[in-house]
């Protein structure tokens, strides 16, 4: 199973600044290993961010995104103590859900 994400969610004025670090190889499917064999594509294909159980961001991602990607979002209407839940799903069906509290 994939390693946990690191999520930081901080109020800056009336905007919540969310930073997410994901641990993922994000293989493009174009790279060759030392034996010259193609390394199969392995990438996060969708992610979503929920605030207190309500989805506020969802999107599709692809192979142009780097290994161990960092995502930053700004969300209105949040407050300290709210629960942020982040989900991702990759093309091999592996997935991960992690949570953080807005501070």
């Amino acid at each position, binding site marked *: 199973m994939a390693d946990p994400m690191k999520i930081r969610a901080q109020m800056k004025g009336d905007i919540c600044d969310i930073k997410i670090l994901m641990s993922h190889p994000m293989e493009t499917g174009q790279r060759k290993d030392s034996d010259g064999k193609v390394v199969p594509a392995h990438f996060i294909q969708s992610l979503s961010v929920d605030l207190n159980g309500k989805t*506020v961001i969802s999107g599709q991602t692809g192979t142009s995104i780097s290994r*161990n*990607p*960092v995502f*930053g979002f700004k969300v209105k209407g949040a407050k300290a103590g709210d629960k942020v839940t982040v989900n991702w799903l990759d093309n091999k069906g592996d997935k991960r859900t992690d949570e953080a509290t807005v501070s």
Partner: protein
Amino acid sequence: MKQSIAVAATLAMVIGGFCSQAVAKDTRSAAAVAAAPTPAAKDAATAEFDKFREVMEDSNPAELFEAKGEDLWQTRRGPKSAALADSCDLGLGIGVVKGAYVQMPRYFADAGKVMDAERRIVWCMIEKQGFSAEELFRTPFANENFTPEPTSLVTYVAGASRNLKIAVPIDEPHVQDVYRLGREVFSFRAGPYDFACATCHGEDGKRIRMQQLPNLAKKEEAIRAYQGWPGYRMTGGFMLTQQWRMNDCFRQQRFPEPRYLSDTVTSLLTYLTANANGNVYKGPGIKR
């Protein structure tokens, strides 16, 4: 009910794409040391990278390795089913992590050696947890597909010294001996090109292609051997330690690569770190 939640902006920051593959290849083939280009050209390129690094330092993927390392530190593992947190002394007492990194290399009486952080952690993994030295020494450094456990552990331990002052106990006699040895190694010329570390790192304003070379013999610049290490390397996206850096510079010097965790590498790290004593360490960093 008010539906007031709105997404103001969505921004995906992508690490890695920034660095071309060519940079990595350049360091591999670089043998000739060029004089610095015109200050203006050098500054523009360096300034751009520094700007990028500033943004990235706030969300450095090194944190993922810190988290992984913390988990490894706390968990009972290995043939002896021991946790490093309950058995490993990094110099400040068993299990004490905070501040330990900036006070290494130091002398460890139980091992009879001066050890840097990575060497000490691996020693603990072997002695306290019973892991096989042979296995740990087989693949000591990270690549795209693999992060050695000691690398994550070093990153965790280093992170626990963030914003603390570097304070290698240089007055301790064993440390002093090893420091002197490190100074010798730094200037020792040999190999097919008759290079020493000092050939590339002993003068101001040198560079190899786009890489500026710090003058590590100078007190003010010695910190550059320490700051940002262990570092998340954006080219490829993996975590590398100072042990790796030393190893790779021996390779660039066309010397035989030292054995993992050798006395020679510890001596260099002792010399370089003690020269940076008094500076504030900013924690695991980001490297191109």
